[in-house]
């Protein structure tokens, strides 16, 4: 991990930029109870450093599977994925990984949860608490350091888990429907906050959602997946200028155009997926 970053810092070749992801002819076959299922078929994609790319598609189409292959949590059945110049084989510790669940450790206070990745790296107690404290303040959670996860709202827990991911400065962040379980207002607030934290950070974000509005509001590019077996149906550049105002983006004409266009694409796949179930 550090080797990679050192190479990047030393002005290594752009191909070695650890913020770049290259997916080449990815396949995933799941085998469970003796039955095989082709979940992902022939996915090829280049994600540029600092890009915000969203995977969009009906549920069950293989978005999480692709993301988990990038995190190294699922093996790649065929094809390859590279981060910078390095093939992703085992668990990928050069990415931040946020899922639908906040995955905070229920027996730890918020502060100790956020400091957890630093603890794993052997950073001393004083330093990691100080850094976690600072980050909690920046995501609006000052005053809740000693609360246990069950004492916090879903939005606060999600903020905590985002803070935990940002505390260690990984070049790529993978987010799997991170705002899925939240109420509409909290969702908007967190989308806004995510854009604020991301802008200028230079980090690459790969974001999974089945919510078209969210996808348009956040992304540079949207990758639409077909229903199972998941393959890339189409890729769209979202040319709405940044900084974006997630609260009012719906009012722009460009948003409406993009929405209609993408919805036509997406609806086809949702209908197919529905017919299958």
């Amino acid at each position, binding site marked *: *991990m550090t080797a990679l970053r050192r190479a990047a810092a030393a002005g290594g070749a752009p191909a070695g930029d650890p913020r770049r992801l290259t997916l080449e002819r990815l396949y995933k076959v799941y085998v469970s109870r003796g039955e095989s299922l082709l979940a992902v078929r022939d996915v090829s994609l280049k994600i540029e450093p600092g890009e915000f790319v969203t995977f969009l598609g009906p549920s069950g189409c293989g978005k999480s599977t692709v993301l988990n292959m990038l*995190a*190294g*949590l699922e093996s790649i059945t065929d094809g390859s994925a590279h981060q910078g110049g390095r093939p992703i084989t085992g*668990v*990928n*510790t050069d*990415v*931040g*990984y946020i*899922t639908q*669940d906040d*995955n905070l*450790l*229920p*027996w*730890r206070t918020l502060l100790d949860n956020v400091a*957890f*990745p630093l*603890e*794993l*790296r052997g950073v001393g107690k004083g330093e990691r608490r100080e850094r976690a404290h600072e980050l909690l303040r920046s995501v609006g959670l000052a005053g809740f350091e000693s609360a*246990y*996860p*069950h*004492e916090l709202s879903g939005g606060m827990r999600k903020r905590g888990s985002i803070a935990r991911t940002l505390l*260690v400065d990984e070049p790529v962040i993978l987010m799997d429907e991170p705002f899925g379980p939240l109420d509409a207002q909290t969702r908007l607030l967190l989308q806004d906050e995510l854009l604020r934290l991301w802008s200028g950070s230079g980090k690459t974000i790969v974001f999974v959602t089945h919510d078209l509005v969210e996808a348009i509001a956040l992304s540079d590019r949207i990758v639409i997946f077909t229903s199972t077996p998941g393959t890339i149906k189409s890729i769209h550049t979202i040319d709405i200028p940044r900084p974006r105002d997630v609260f009012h983006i719906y009012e722009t004409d460009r948003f409406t155009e993009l929405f209609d266009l993408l919805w036509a694409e997406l609806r086809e796949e949702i209908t197919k997926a529905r017919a299958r179930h």
Partner: protein
Amino acid sequence: MAEIQTEPVTLLPSVPLDADEERLQLREVERTRQAQRRTLIWIVSWRLTLLVVLLFGWYFASGHIVDRLFASNPIDVAKAFGDYIGDGTLWYNLRYTLIEVAVGYGAGTVIALVAAGLLSIFTTAHRVLHPFLMALYAVPKIAIAPLMIMWFGLGLTPKFLLSGIFVFFVVFMNTLAGLRSVSPSLINVARVMGARRHQLLLKVVFPSATPNVLTAMRITVPEAMVGAIVGEFIAGNRGIGYLINSASNQYNTAGVFAGIIAILIVVLLMDSLVTLLERRLMRWRPPSAADR
């Protein structure tokens, strides 16, 4: 811009000031505390009432409905208990039983935790050993008692072992179940964060088994006592089990009950120690409706 009709919010003249709101909160804290205290008082008074009713029932039934020889009565039992304390019999025997239970419970728990931890790491070993463990688990522990006496004689050793065995399996099985119930997504997130194997175990897997461990530690308090008492029943010349046994041989029913009450007190004390431990370790848990 579209128009929207907006209605002014009318504030009553006496809007509470910050100080008032603080007072409101304090009052509510005080109210909640009082409500909790009232409930506690209710529960304790019901417990005492029930105890008194039971004692009176026992007192009046004995000699009328049931033979006094077999039922004794609360007053005789209290006298017997007092006598046992007075002549040192109680402490002489209780000391022995306490040692057996403490060693059996402590060692049984610790060994079970270590064994479960090891088997959760070495999963293949676990799969190999599983049927053997289940077979041992299925044996009624009481059936092992005579063997223990035959092998280890009349001293403390067989009682340690019996008490320990009664504890071991329950803690072992529960801990193993707890270790395996750890959320896979917690593990995955920690792995992506760079957790090494030993860090996963120490910081994610083991802590998530604490609720199961504590449950098992609660269930096994009386089990540890059963193990020790069974050992003393079968063979031995000291301990509360021995005391009960010899009192019963002399048709000293009051003595038997006095022994049982001594056991009861010890078990209740141990149980409250586990409760203290639980309160300390489980503060992170949302309170459940079943909480006392």
